[in-house]
C-alpha cells in the first residue's frame, strides 16, 4: 500500500504504517495524523518527537511508563499519565502515536 503527498509516493504496510522509517518528515506526520483524525497540537508533537528520539536510540518504541515519565517531565506532572496520552491519541498512545511518528507498529500481547 502507499499514499501520495506533495508529488511523492510513500509506501506503507496494510495498516498504513510507513514502511521506510527514513521517509518520515513533518508533512508526512501531518498527513498520517489527519488520516487518524488526530488534530496535532504542540503536546502531540512532544510525544511524537520523543517517540522518534527513543526509537533512534533503542530500536523500539518506549514502554508506556517510560513515555509517561518523559512527557510528565516535558509538559508537567499532571500530563505524565496514560489517561492524558489517551486524550491525545484516543486509539492508544503506542499504536496511534507510533503511526504518526513513522515508526513500526508495536505488536505483541498489547
Amino acid at each position, binding site marked *: 500500500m502507499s499514499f501520495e503527498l506533495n508529488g511523492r509516493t510513500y509506501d506503507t504496510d*496494510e495498516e498504513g504504517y510507513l514502511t521506510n522509517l527514513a521517509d518520515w518528515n513533518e508533512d508526512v506526520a501531518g498527513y498520517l495524523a489527519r488520516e487518524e483524525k488526530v488534530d496535532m497540537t504542540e503536546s502531540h508533537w512532544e510525544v511524537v518527537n520523543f517517540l522518534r528520539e527513543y526509537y533512534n536510540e533503542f530500536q523500539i518504541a*518506549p*514502554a508506556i*511508563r517510560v513515555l509517561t*515519565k518523559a512527557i510528565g517531565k516535558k509538559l508537567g506532572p499532571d500530563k505524565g499519565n496514560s489517561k492524558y496520552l489517551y486524550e491525545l491519541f484516543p486509539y492508544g498512545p503506542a499504536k496511534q502515536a507510533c503511526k504518526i511518528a513513522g515508526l513500526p507498529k*508495536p*505488536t*505483541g*500481547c498489547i
Partner: protein
Amino acid sequence: MAAPTFETPKFRDIPIVPVLMPQAMAASRPFVAAAPIQQALGFPGELVPDWEQKAIAKLGELLGKYRSLRVYLDACVHCGACTDKCHYFIGTQDPKNMPVARQDLLRSVYRRHFTVAGKLFPKLVGARDLTKELLDDWYTYFNQCSECRRCSVFCPYGIDTAEITMAAKEIMNSIGLGQKYTNEILGKVHRIGNNLGLPGPALEDTLLGLEEDIAADTGVEVKLPLDAKGAEVLLVTPSADFFSEPHVESLIGYAKVFHQAGISWTLSSHASEAGNFGMFVGNYEQMKKISLRVRQAALELGVKRIVVGECGHAWRVAYSFWNTLAGPWDFLDSRYPAPQHICEVTHDLIQRGALTLDKEANDHRIITFHDSCNVARASRMGGTPGGQFTIPREIIKSVANHFHDMHPDTIGEKTFCCGGGGGLLTDDLMELRVKGALPRMEALKQVVDEHKVNFMATICAICKAQFSKVLPYYGFDMSMVGGVHQLVSTAIRLGAKE
C-alpha cells in the same frame, strides 16, 4: 395431595441461543503474512502452486504423528452439544463459528482423503475436496477460533477442538498461507527474544525506570534485576509486562513479592518472553525453539528455579509442554515445582505469613476474577485439582476485602475466553474481538449491577490487553481490568516485618 417438591427454574436472559446469521463474519480475515515473515520461520513465502496436494499431504503427516487428531476427526457425531458454547458464535451469530461447523471445514477434507466411505461416496458422508473456496473458509474461520477449548468441556466425546484449529493453522502455514500478526511476532521472538521486539538495552532502560518509580512511590529500593548470574529464580513473563498498562503493574507486584520474601531473582534478556505463539499456530518446532531459550537462559544464569509470570498460554506451554520440549529440568532445585507459577509463589508466601498485607489498601476496589482459558482448561496450580481456580482467588481474598465471582457458568473450567486469545489479538480482527467478548461482558455486567464490581482481575497478558480495548465498547472503563499481582502490589507493605 402434597405438591411435589422441586425448584422452579429461574428466568434466564434472552436470547438464550443466538439467532443464526449465515456468513455474518465471512469478511473477517486477518492480514496474510508477507513473504519475508513466512520465510523467516521456514514456511513458503506465498501460497504454493500445488497447495491442494501439499495440504492433504501435510494433513496425512499430522494424522500419522498425532493419533489424537485422527480420533478427534473421527469421533464427532454432530450431536450439537458444542454449538452454543463458543463465545465467537454467541457474539457473531455466524453458524460457521459453531465449533462443530468450524471443525467440519477440516473434517470434511479428512473424510474425503483419509476414510474409505469418503473416498467412495463423498456426498453421503459429508466429504469434500479442498477447493480454493474451502481454503478461504479455513483461513477465515480458523482465524475465528481462539483455541480456548470451552466447547471441549461440553463435548460428550471430549474432542479437543483447539487441536483441530491448530492443525489447520499448521497446514496453512506449510502451504504459505500464514497470519501476519502471529507470524511476525514469532519472528521477533527468534530474532530479539520477545514478542514485542524489545532489545536488551531498551529492556534495561525500562527496568531502571521502574525501579525509580517504585522508589518514588514507596521509598524502598526494590530491584528488577536483568541477567543477574547466580540468582535463585529466573522469572519469565510476557514482554507486555514491560511495555503496557495495566500489565506493568503486575510486574511491579512480582518484584515487590520477591523483594519482601528475600528471594534473589532475575529476568533474562535472552528469554525475555513467556508467551509462546508457536502453540497458537500448532507448530512444535517453533514452540520448542522458543522454549529452549528459557532453558538456555536458566543454565547460563545458573538459577535454581523458574517462575512464570501472568500469561495464560505461556503457563499452558510451561506446565504441559516444557518438559518434553526443553527438559529435563533436573538441574533445578527439586524442592520446587519446575516450572512454578508466580501465583503459586505468592500464595505459598502468604500461607507461610511471609508477607505483610494491608487489605484496606484495596478497599476502593470491588473485585471479580476472570479465569483465563489456557490456565483454566489446560493446566493446574498447586498440589490439588482445581488449584488454578482457587489459588488466584485466595490471593485476591488475602489482599482485598471485596470479592465477588461472576456467574458460575462463566468461570472456572467453563470460563469464557476474553475474545482475543489464540493469536487473534490484532487490530485487523477488532470486530471479532469485540463480538467475541460479549458473553464475558454480560457476566461482568451482572456483577457490576449486583455488587458494584469495578475491577476484573486476570492472570494473562492477552486478556488484559483485550479487555482494555473492548471494555469501552460495552460502556465500561478500560482501567477496570488488571492483574492479580497489581492487587498484591497495592496491598503489600515493604520494609522490615513488624
